[in-house]
C-alpha cells in the first residue's frame, strides 16, 4: 500500500502541487454488545481508501477516494490540486510548513495477543457472564457489556521524501448497570462510562479489566442510587476520580491548547480558545500542582504513534508546568505561524479526511498519594466518580460535568451516597483551586475514542493519563 501512497503523491506533484502527501488507511473494527445475557449486536467493519493532500501556491487542497486503481488515483490527485487552486479565490498569507526531516520507517503499537484472533465465543462468553452476574442483583433493570476492537494501518508518502508504515491496535471493554425507578434512571459503569476503558494494546488489556469480578458491585450501586439523596447544591470541596479528571483535562486543557483552535480555524464549529499565542510562559492556568504533558510516545495511549500524519515524530511536550502554560499542540502549518516547529499532533480520521491538530496523550503529571489518601485528608466535601455528561463554552471557559455517583466526605471518610451529581466552573479558576493530585499508584492512562472536531466531522482516538485530584470552592449540584 505504500506504493499506492507514493503513486498518489507523485500524481499530485505532476498535477502541479508544490507539496503533496498520499496516505492510504485501512481500518478494521469489531464490536460486540450483550445486554441481560442477550446479543444486542455483533459487527465487523472494514474501510480502506486514499487521501491526497496538496499545497499549491500556499493553499491547501484535499481529495479522497475508496478506489485505488491508477486512473482513480490520478483523478483524485488532479481534484486535490483543483481544490487548492479554488481556495485562492480569497486572499490569505500562504501556508508555510515548519521544517521536518524526511524519514522512512515502520511503527506498531505494543500488543501481546491480537484481539482480532481471539475466538468470538470467548468474547461473547465474557460479556454473558458479566451480565448474568449483574442480573443477580435485585432491582437491576439492565446489565450491559461491550467489547470494541480497532486496528488502523497507515501508509504515508510525502513529496519531501518521507515514507512510513504504521499500525495501531486498540482494545476496549466495559460494563454498565442500569436501574429504573419512579422517575429515575441510574447507571453505574466499570471501568469507565461510554463503553469502558480502551487502550492501544491487545486482548491482554481486556483480561486485566476484571469485568466479571466488578459486575455485581456496580449493579448493586446502580440499584442503591435509585433511593440515594440528590447531590446537594452548594459550593464545597470536590474530589474527582481519575476517570473524571480525564475528561476535565480533555475539555478544559486539551482542546484549548490546540493551536488551530487558538488561531481561529475552528471558530464556526466548536469554537475558539481563551488561550492566546502570547500566553506562553505567562498564563497561570492552574495551581502549582498542575503540570500537564502531551506525550505521543506513551505505551498504551490511543494518541500514541511513531509519527503523526505529517511525518513529524512523536514527542513529549510540556503543556503546563507547575501551573503555568508553556506550549500548544501544533501542526507544521500552525507552528510556523508562531515561529516554532510542529509538536507532531496532526492526525486524520481515516483515509477520507485531512489531518487536523488532535490531542495525543495529554496527561496530568502524578504527584503524591492515593485516592484514599486524598479523601482521608479531606474534612468536608463531595467525591464524584465516572462521567455521564460534559459541556463547555465556545472559548473553553465555562464548563459543566455530570457524574454517575457521589459520596459525602466527612472527616476523611465517604459517608452518604448522592445521585445525579454534577459540578460547574471556570477553567482557570477551577484548575487554580486544585490542591491535591494523586500519585502514580492511582494514575491511569485512559482512552477517549470519540473526540469530535472539524468540518466535515472527524472523530479522533486520544489518550489522557489522570490521577484523582481535589479542588476547593466548587459549585456542585446544579439543578434545572
Amino acid at each position: 500500500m505504500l506504493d499506492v501512497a507514493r503513486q498518489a503523491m507523485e500524481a499530485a506533484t505532476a498535477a502541479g502541487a508544490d507539496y503533496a502527501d498520499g496516505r492510504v488507511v485501512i481500518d478494521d473494527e469489531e464490536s460486540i454488545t450483550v445486554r441481560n445475557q442477550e446479543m444486542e449486536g455483533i459487527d465487523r467493519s472494514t474501510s480502506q481508501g486514499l487521501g491526497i493532500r496538496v499545497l499549491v501556491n500556499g493553499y491547501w487542497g484535499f481529495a479522497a477516494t475508496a478506489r485505488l486503481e491508477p486512473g482513480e488515483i490520478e483523478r483524485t490527485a488532479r481534484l486535490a490540486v483543483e481544490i487548492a487552486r479554488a481556495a485562492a479565490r480569497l486572499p490569505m498569507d500562504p501556508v508555510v510548513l515548519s521544517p521536518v526531516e524526511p524519514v522512512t520507517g515502520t511503527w506498531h503499537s505494543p500488543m501481546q495477543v491480537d484481539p482480532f484472533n481471539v475466538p468470538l465465543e470467548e468474547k461473547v462468553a465474557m460479556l454473558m457472564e458479566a451480565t448474568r452476574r449483574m442480573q443477580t442483583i435485585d432491582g437491576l433493570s439492565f446489565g450491559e457489556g461491550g467489547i470494541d476492537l480497532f486496528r488502523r494501518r497507515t501508509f504515508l508518502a510525502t513529496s519531501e521524501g518521507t515514507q512510513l508504515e504504521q499500525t495501531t491496535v486498540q482494545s476496549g471493554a466495559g460494563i454498565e448497570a442500569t436501574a429504573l425507578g419512579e422517575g429515575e434512571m441510574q447507571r453505574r459503569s466499570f471501568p469507565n462510562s461510554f463503553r469502558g476503558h480502551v487502550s492501544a494494546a491487545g486482548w491482554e488489556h481486556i483480561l486485566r479489566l476484571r469485568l466479571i469480578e466488578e459486575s455485581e458491585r456496580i449493579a448493586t450501586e446502580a440499584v442503591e442510587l435509585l433511593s440515594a439523596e440528590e447531590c446537594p447544591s452548594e459550593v464545597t470541596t470536590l474530589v474527582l476520580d481519575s476517570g473524571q479528571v480525564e475528561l476535565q483535562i480533555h475539555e478544559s486543557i486539551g482542546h484549548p491548547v490546540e493551536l488551530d483552535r487558538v488561531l481561529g480555524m475552528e471558530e464556526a464549529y466548536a469554537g475558539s480558545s481563551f488561550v492566546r499565542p502570547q500566553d506562553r510562559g505567562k498564563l497561570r492556568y492552574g495551581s502549582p500542582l498542575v503540570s500537564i504533558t502531551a506525550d505521543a510516545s506513551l505505551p498504551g495511549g490511543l494518541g500514541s504513534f511513531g509519527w503523526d500524519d505529517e511525518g513529524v515524530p512523536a514527542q513529549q511536550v510540556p503543556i503546563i508546568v507547575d501551573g503555568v502554560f508553556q506550549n500548544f499542540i501544533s501542526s507544521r502549518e500552525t507552528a510556523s505561524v508562531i515561529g516554532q516547529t510542529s509538536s507532531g499532533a496532526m492526525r486524520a480520521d481515516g483515509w477520507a479526511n485531512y489531518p487536523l491538530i488532535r490531542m495525543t496523550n495529554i496527561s496530568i503529571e502524578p504527584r503524591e498519594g492515593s485516592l484514599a489518601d486524598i479523601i482521608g485528608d479531606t474534612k468536608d466535601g463531595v467525591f464524584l466518580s465516572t462521567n455521564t455528561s460534559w459541556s463547555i463554552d465556545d472559548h473553553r471557559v465555562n464548563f459543566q460535568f455530570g457524574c454517575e455517583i457521589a459520596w459525602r466526605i466527612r472527616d476523611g471518610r465517604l459517608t452518604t451516597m448522592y445521585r445525579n451529581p454534577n459540578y460547574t466552573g471556570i477553567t482557570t479558576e477551577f484548575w487554580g483551586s486544585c490542591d491535591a493530585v494523586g500519585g502514580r499508584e492511582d494514575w491511569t492512562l485512559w482512552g477517549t475514542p470519540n473526540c469530535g472536531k472539524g468540518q466535515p466531522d472527524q472523530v479522533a482516538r486520544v489518550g489522557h493519563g489522570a490521577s484523582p485530584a481535589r479542588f476547593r470552592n466548587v459549585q456542585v449540584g446544579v439543578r434545572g
Partner: protein
Amino acid sequence: MPGPIGPDEVRRVADAALNVGGADGVEVLFMHEWGGLTRFASSSIHQSTHREDTGVSVRVIKENRIGVASTNDFTIEGARRAADHALEMANVVAPDALFPGLAPQAEVPGVDLYDEATASATPAFRADGVADLVAQCPEGFTAAGAFETIASEVAVANTEGQFCWSPSTMASINTVVSGGEGGHGFAEVFESATSDVDPVAIGNRAASKAVDSQSPRDIEAGRYPVVLEPAAVSTLVGFLAWIGFGGRSLAEGRSCFSGKEGQRVAAGDVSIYDDARARGTLGLPFDFEGVPRSRVDLIKSGTFLGGVYDLRTAKQAGVGTTGHALPPPNPEGPFPLNLFMEPGETSVEEMIAGTERGLLVTRFHYTNVVHPIESTITGMTRDGTFLIENGEIAHPVKNLRFTQSIVEALTGTEMIGRDTELASEFFFSASRVPALKVASFNFSGRSDH
C-alpha cells in the same frame, strides 16, 4: 465528478450477499456518498475537501442469530466477503428472541431530492459562494464556516424481496461572523439544491447579528423569559428525538415520555411530528430496514401521542413499525430523523415586543443531557444573546449556561413563530422548527464573553 451508481448495479452487487449459503435471511444496506466541503476561517479558505465512499453493510440471520459485517469494497467479492463474515458471527452468537423478521416487500413512494447541479458542484463554485458570503462582512469583521455540497444514494435489499433505492443531494452553509468589540453572529441554511442556497443572505444575516452583538455586558444568571430563535429551538427538539421519542427507550421506561401516552406534556399549541417525505426536510422515503416511512404525530396540541418504532421495537411494544430503523447493529433502537414543529402566528419581533424583561437567544452550543427522564439538558448560548427590556432589544449580553428541562420549556411556551427553519443537530437528522417564546428558562451560569 462521481455520480450515482444506480439501482441496477446496486442490486447486482447486493445479490452476491443475498445469495450467501446457509443463511435464513439476509439484508443489505448500501450507501454511496460523494461531495465537497469548502471550509473558511478569518475570511480565507483554509481547509477544503472532496471525498467519495461506498458502504455495504450485510445483516445475516440464521436461526434468529444475527451477525453484521460492513465494508467499503463495493464489488461482488466485497459484498460476498461481508456476507461470509456476518454469517460467521451469526453462527456463534446467541439467538435474538425479539428478532421480528426482515421487512416484507412493499412499495416505497419516490421523493425527488436529487439535484444534478448540487451533485456535481465544483470547488470553484463553492469558493465563489464563500467569497460572496465573506464580502458581506463589514470592516473589522471576518467570517468562518463551511459550504458543503454532497450527494448520496441509499438502497436496502433483502431476501424477502424488498428492494428500495433513493438518491438525494444537500447543500448547506453555516457561518459565524466575528469582529469589532467582541461581536459574533451566526446563520446557516440546509437545502436539497444549491440554487436554493443564498450565500449573500447568509453572510448578511450573520454579519448583522455580529455588529449588533458587540460589547456584550454581564448579566446575572437566573430564570428569564426567553425568545429562542429557530436554531436554539432545534437543539431542544433534536434532544427530544434522542431522549424522548425512540420506541425502545419508551418501552423500557428510559424516555422522558415513558408512560405518558395521552398526557399533556407541552403547551396546547405545541405540535411535533416526524415526516421524512414532507416538503421542507431532507429525508429518505424508507428506513434502514427498507420499510416505507410515513408521518408520525408525536405531540399533538400539547399531548404526547407516541413514539417511533423499527421492526424489533415494534414487536417489543406490540405495535407496528413506523419506519424509523437506523443502520444495524443499533442497540439504541429507532430514532426520528425528520422532525417538524408546527408553526404559530407570531413573528420574532412580536415576541420581543411582548416581553417586558427577558433574553433573546440565537443558538445553543455544546449541549448535553443532565437528567434524561426529566429531559434536563445543559449547554451555552452563543453568537448573539441579547437582553430584552420593555419590548425592545436593550443590549447584547455575555454568554450564559442553561440547565433546563425541555418538557418544562415546551409546557411554558407562550408564543410560536410563524416562520420555520431547517437545522441539523445530529448527523442524519434535521428539524424544521419555528422560534418560541418561553415563559421561564433557567440560566445556571455565565461566561466571560
